């Protein structure tokens, strides 16, 4: 057996992958509708926004700790992007202009998170809960945001499909929106930054051992701050993608996404205590969770059971990873003894 294969067996990503296959086969056996072109496109479509948010969760967990503010940063910055696009008469400009406006505001909000977390060293969960509440208050209180139609440029972008399929047997059609490309682009960039640049390695180094990172010459504070700024920007893109896919801006639909995304990322092998987590794991975890939330119906399980399943998956997934890390500690002491 070769080395790569052995290493693969040790990764939780591999097991998530296996579960996904098994789950898909069960659905296929039960309903015969899983491996149909429209279902596969639907699965991809439902993954887009969660997997962009998953990048936020990954970066935060690896470098610092949980970030729960991304849905509301997404909501508020996409609101600002839409309003400003309309207000400045940019509705005729390319869609990317609106995305850039949103990203700018997202980064600003992320910078607020980063500043408080880095400067005072508060738990990131509590800080991002607080800022979420602030962003929510600004969005719904100060701006009194309501449902909105999208500006023309985003509307056009939303109505241009990347791919449309139609199932010959069932007559059901599905489209894959252009936002899919945005997601793919972000993952490629993230892959490059996290693996091929020193800043990206710094994100892992800081999460692995803060003091060692400082001594090695990483700028710990700048890296953490940067992660939260980037998270803000990513959240904004995720939020706009959500609006584009819905072809409406729905301000109250954003809240609550954080929990599932965090669950997905943890399932994908990201370590809660920092330093470990891969993009592959993010995607697989998100795929598994969106499959569970969207495919229960195909198994004949009523939709009401959805939350029960999600809850159970989070608990089982985190329990397995918690038990694994304990087992890991035991292996370490054993190794120490063997060396003696």
């Amino acid at each position, binding site marked *: 057996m070769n080395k790569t294969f052995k290493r693969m067996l040790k990764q939780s990503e591999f097991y998530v992958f296996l579960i996904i296959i098994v789950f898909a086969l069960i659905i296929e056996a039960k309903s015969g509708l899983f491996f149909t072109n429209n279902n596969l496109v639907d699965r991809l479509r439902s993954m887009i926004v969660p997997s962009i948010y998953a990048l936020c969760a990954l970066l935060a967990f690896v470098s610092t700790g949980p970030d729960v503010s991304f849905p509301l940063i997404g909501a508020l910055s996409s609101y600002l992007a839409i309003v400003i696009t309309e207000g400045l008469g940019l509705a005729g400009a390319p869609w990317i202009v609106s995305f850039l406006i949103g990203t700018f505001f997202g980064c600003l909000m992320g910078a607020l998170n980063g500043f408080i977390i880095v400067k005072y060293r508060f738990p990131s969960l509590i800080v991002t809960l607080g800022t979420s509440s602030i962003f929510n208050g600004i969005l719904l209180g100060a701006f009194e945001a309501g449902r909105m139609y999208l500006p023309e440029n985003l509307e056009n972008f939303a109505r241009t499909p990347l791919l449309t399929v139609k199932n010959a047997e069932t007559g059901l059609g599905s489209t894959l929106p252009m936002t899919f490309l945005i997601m793919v682009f972000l993952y490629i960039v993230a892959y490059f930054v996290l693996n091929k640049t020193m800043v990206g390695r710094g994100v892992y180094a800081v999460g692995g051992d803060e003091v060692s990172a400082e001594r090695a010459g990483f700028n710990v504070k700048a890296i953490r701050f940067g992660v939260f700024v980037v998270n803000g920007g990513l959240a904004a893109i995720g939020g706009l993608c959500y609006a584009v896919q819905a072809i409406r801006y729905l301000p109250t639909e954003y809240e609550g996404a954080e929990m599932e995304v965090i669950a997905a990322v943890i399932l994908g092998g990201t370590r809660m205590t920092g330093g470990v987590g891969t993009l592959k794991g993010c995607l697989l975890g998100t795929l598994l969770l969106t499959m569970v939330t969207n495919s229960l119906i195909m198994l004949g399980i009523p939709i009401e059971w959805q*939350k029960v399943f999600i809850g159970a998956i989070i608990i089982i997934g985190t329990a397995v990873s918690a038990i694994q890390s304990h087992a890991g500690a035991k292996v370490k002491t054993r190794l120490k003894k063997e060396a003696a």
Partner: protein
Amino acid sequence: MSNKKIKIDSNIVRLLIILLVFIVLACVTKPSQFIKIANFQTMAKALSEYGLMAVGVGICMISGGIDLSTVYIANLCGILSGLYLQGGGNNAVAVLIALVVGAACGAFNGFLVSYLKIPAMLATLGSYQLFQGIAIVISGGSTVSGIPASFTSFATTALFSYIPLSFVVFVLVCAAMTFVMSKTKFGTRMYLVGTNEKAARFAGIRCNKILIQTYLLSGLISGIAGLLSLARLNSAKADFGSSYTMQCILIAVLGGVNPNGGFGTIPGIAIAVLILQMMSSYLNMFPGVSNYYRNLIWGVALIGVLIMNFILDKRRTQKLSKTS
């Protein structure tokens, strides 16, 4: 010891001052609306439910964790009791159902946190989905209503015809928990487990037992909150009060609970509940101000209080290191 009194008081005094300043501000700017018995009664009723949950969240934070599931435990308990009452059940049994279910949910959280060693935040994040999911399944996703008047009259009755009974329940629970936290070995052990779990094990404290009991208590108190809201609203729903989770954490931190565990008092939490309710009722007196502004103010307050505590703590440790 005199020193101890000064130390405990400083946090409470700080909170009382904030409360007082707020009352004065409200009385001066909105005298006609604020200084009314009905207003105080409404406030007292409204705060009891999330106030109780905040006590639950607070003790879990003191024990070194957090409980994000309190709201959903309350809803689940409310739904189960509500369904039972709908079918013409006995009030006492309905109460018992809520308390037992609450305690069971809490113990489940405690099991996840202690024996399985899942970080409390993730464990209760998962269990909250689970409890909410169970509530949805049981209630079919709809509102449970049609509760007999004999039960809901609890919410409309007042002690000495002025003090709402639900507020009396809140005060009693706070008093009991204050006693438990400061005057029992269980409370002392909870603080110690929250400070350093490893050292607690070496000191002969059965940490798993303490943690399970802590989360069980939190669940039990949430069950009581569920009953109060069932009586007040005459209904229960699986996703009722989802914004309370954030609010409870805010209250606990505002009340002086250290998010890293080991420190915090129940009276502090109780006063923080009062402050929050005052603020929120006061805001309601401005029709032009949207309800959603509350979220903004609470978020700012949470981070503001964290920063304030940080600065005050720093000063205190500096002083301590100088004197020693």
